[in-house]
C-alpha cells in the first residue's frame, strides 16, 4: 500500500491547528496564573469563548471568561473553562482518529450513551481536590511553591482509600509529584501537559445533580469468549502503575472486537523495572498468558462502553498458545474497534494497535528511530517512540532498530504521530525471534536481566515486610 502512511503523517486534518492554537492561548494564561492575567491572556480566553459560543457550553464559558478577567474566578467558572478546553481536545481527537481509521481501513463502533455509573464518592474529598485545583489556577504554574504543591497531600491520601475516587486520586498524585519535583529546578513549563492534567482532574471532581460522575459509566453488559492478546502497554508514575492489555475478543458470531483490559496497582518510586510485575500477583492467569503468549478463555467479564473489559482473574483461564504476530496478521484488519467515550476523547488516549512490516528502520544522529514505510516519500516516515519502551520488559531501542516486523500502538502527541512498539520480530540464525513487552511478566527470562534483578533483591517484598512490621494495623 504505497503512499498510505504519508496520508496519515504528511498532513494535519482541517481545524486541528486552529483548535490547538486556542488551547495554547489558554495554557499560557493558566501557566501565568488566572489570578493576574495580562491583556494577551484575557484575549486568549475571549478567543476560547468565541470558539465555543455556538456550543451548549457557550453561555457558561462566556460568563466564566468575564469573571476570570475581572479577577473573580469561582470554581464553577474554572469547571466551565476546563470543559471548553476539553471540548477542543475532543474535536482534535475525533479528527485525528477519523483520519487514522480511514488510513487503516478500520471499522469503529458507534457510541451508545451508557447508563450513568453508581454513586461516585465523598463530596467532601472532591471539594477538597477542586479547591486545590482552584488555587493552582489562580497562582499559575510559575506561582507554585512547595507548600502549594504539597497542599493536596491529605486530600489525595484520603481519596486513595476510596475505590470510587481512584482515578482522580491517581491523577492528582501524579500532578502533585511533578509540581513538587519541578519547584526550583525546572526552567520551563510543560504547559500543555499540566493544563491537560488540571482540566481532567477538575472534570473528575465534577458531580452531576444525580450524584454521579459524567466520566464514569456502567458496563454495557458482560461477555464470554476467547481473548487473543496483541500486547501490553505499561503506564507508570512514581506511585501508580497500570498494565493495559490490547487484545482481540472472539465472542459469538460477529467479527472479532478490539478490546483493552487494564489492571492497576499503587506503588512507590523505588519499585521500577522488572519488579513492577510483582505488584500484580493477584492476576496470575493474566500474567501467565502474557509471559507464555497464551490465549485466554474468559467468562462473564463486564464490558465497558469504551471497549474496556473489567478484568477478573478468576473468570479467566489460559488456553492454547497464540503468537500475537499471527493474531495481528490474521485478525487485526477485520476487527471492529470500540467507540471512545465522549469525555475521554483526547489525543493522548489514542493507542491504536497496528502491525507494521516491510519498513526500513533508520537511526538518526541523536538516537532517534524512524520507520520509513512508503519508500522514498519523506511523509511516509513514522517516528518510533523508543522512550516509551517500559523498563520492566525486554524490548530495547537496539532490538527495535533491527526488527523486521512490529506490533505497536499508534500515538499522537506534540503535533505528530509516532509508533510505540509492543513487540518486534528480528531475523536470527535459524529463523525469526519475537520479543514482547510482556515477556517478563513472570520474571526476567534473560539471564543478564535476571541477575540484575536478583542483585536488587525483591523491593516489593522488602517494603511489604517493613509495612507489616511498622504500620500498626
Amino acid at each position, binding site marked *: 500500500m504505497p503512499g498510505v502512511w504519508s496520508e496519515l503523517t504528511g498532513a494535519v486534518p482541517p481545524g486541528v491547528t486552529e483548535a490547538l492554537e486556542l488551547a*495554547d492561548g489558554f495554557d499560557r494564561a493558566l*501557566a501565568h496564573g488566572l489570578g493576574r492575567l495580562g491583556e494577551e491572556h484575557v484575549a486568549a480566553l475571549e478567543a476560547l469563548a468565541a470558539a465555543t459560543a455556538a456550543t451548549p457550553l457557550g453561555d457558561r464559558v462566556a460568563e466564566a471568561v468575564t469573571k476570570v478577567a475581572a479577577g473573580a474566578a469561582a470554581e464553577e467558572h474554572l469547571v466551565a473553562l476546563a470543559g471548553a478546553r476539553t471540548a477542543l481536545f475532543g474535536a482534535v481527537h475525533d479528527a485525528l482518529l477519523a483520519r487514522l481509521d480511514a488510513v487503516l481501513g478500520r471499522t469503529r463502533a458507534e457510541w451508545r450513551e451508557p447508563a450513568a455509573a453508581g454513586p461516585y464518592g465523598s463530596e467532601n474529598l472532591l471539594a477538597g481536590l477542586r479547591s486545590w485545583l482552584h488555587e493552582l489556577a489562580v497562582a499559575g*504554574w*510559575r506561582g*507554585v511553591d*512547595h507548600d502549594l504543591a504539597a497542599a493536596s497531600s491529605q486530600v489525595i*491520601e484520603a481519596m486513595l482509600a476510596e*475505590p470510587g475516587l*481512584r*482515578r482522580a486520586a*491517581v491523577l492528582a498524585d*501524579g500532578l502533585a509529584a*511533578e509540581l513538587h519535583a*519541578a519547584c*526550583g529546578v*525546572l*526552567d*520551563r*513549563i*510543560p*504547559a500543555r*501537559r499540566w493544563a491537560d492534567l488540571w482540566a481532567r482532574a477538575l472534570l473528575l471532581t465534577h458531580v452531576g445533580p444525580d450524584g454521579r460522575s459524567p466520566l464514569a459509566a456502567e458496563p454495557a453488559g458482560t461477555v464470554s469468549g476467547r481473548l487473543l492478546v496483541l500486547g501490553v502497554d*505499561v*503506564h*507508570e*508514575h512514581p506511585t*501508580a502503575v*497500570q498494565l493495559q492489555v490490547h487484545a482481540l475478543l472472539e465472542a459469538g458470531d460477529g467479527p472479532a472486537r478490539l478490546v483493552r483490559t*487494564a*489492571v*492497576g496497582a*499503587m506503588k*512507590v518510586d*523505588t519499585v*521500577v523495572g522488572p*519488579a513492577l510485575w510483582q505488584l*500484580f500477583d493477584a492476576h496470575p492467569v493474566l500474567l501467565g498468558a502474557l509471559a507464555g503468549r497464551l490465549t485466554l478463555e474468559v467468562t462473564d467479564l463486564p464490558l*465497558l462502553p469504551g471497549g474496556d473489559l*473489567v*478484568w*477478573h482473574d478468576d473468570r479467566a483461564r489460559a488456553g492454547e498458545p497464540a503468537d500475537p504476530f499471527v493474531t495481528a496478521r490474521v485478525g487485526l484488519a477485520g476487527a471492529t474497534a470500540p467507540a471512545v467515550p465522549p469525555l*475521554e476523547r*483526547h489525543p493522548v488516549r489514542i493507542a491504536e494497535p497496528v502491525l507494521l512490516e516491510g519498513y526500513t528502520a533508520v537511526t538518526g544522529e541523536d538516537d532517534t528511530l524512524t520507520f520509513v514505510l512508503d519508500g522514498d516519500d519523506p511523509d511516509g516516515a513514522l517516528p518510533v517512540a523508543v*522512550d*516509551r*519502551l517500559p*523498563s520492566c520488559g525486554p524490548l530495547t531501542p537496539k532490538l527495535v532498530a533491527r526488527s523486521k516486523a512490529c506490533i505497536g500502538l499508534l500515538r499522537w*502527541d*506534540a*503535533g*505528530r504521530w509516532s509508533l*510505540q512498539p509492543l513487540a518486534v520480530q528480528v531475523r536470527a540464525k535459524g529463523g525469526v525471534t519475537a520479543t514482547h513487552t510482556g515477556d517478563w511478566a513472570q520474571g526476567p527470562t534473560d539471564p543478564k536481566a535476571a541477575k540484575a534483578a536478583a*542483585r*536488587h*533483591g525483591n*523491593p516489593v517484598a522488602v*517494603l511489604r515486610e517493613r*509495612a507489616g*512490621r*511498622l504500620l500498626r494495623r
Partner: protein
Amino acid sequence: MIADSTAPEAWSSSSWERSSTARVVSPVRPRKLAKVPFVELAGGCLQGVVSSGSDESRVYVSSIAARTHAYSCSTNNNRWCGGLGGSPCKHLHALANEAVLQYGVDRVARYLRVEVDAEVSTGSDLIARMNGRPEQAQAETVFSRFLRHLAYLELPGTTAPLPEMHWFPATGAVG
C-alpha cells in the same frame, strides 16, 4: 517557584511545551532496599530511613540539610544515634550512598548544594565534601512520610481502567 517560559517566543522552537506526555520527573534507578528502605530529597533535606543492623523492628531516621549540611540521626522514637560523634554515623553514610544509587550523584549534589568534581562518585564522597554539624531534626515527620510511603503498597489494586494513566507512559529503560 518555577521559572517563566510562557512567553510565546520561548515556545517557537520547542514541542516540549506542547507535549501532553512531556517528561518532568526522571525515574529513579533500581537499588537494593533492604538496608535503606526510604530515601527522598524533600523539604530542603536529603532524608530517609535506615534499617538497624541489630534489631529488625528498629529503624533510624537520618537527614542531611541542603546548604548548611547539618546532619541528624535518631531512632524513630527520637533517641539520638549513638554512632554520632563529631562526624556522620554509618547510617548517614548508608543514606547518602543509597541516595546516589537512586538519583545519581549529580542530582543529590545539586539538591544539597555540594561542589563536586570527577573524583566524587559515592555518597560517602559527598559527605567528605561537607562541613556540617550535628543538629537534631524532626524525626517524626520523616518517619510518618515513610509510613505513608509504605501505605501505598497496602492499597488494593484496580481492575477498572484508569484512562488518565495514558498521560504517564512507561519510563524508558533505566540503568
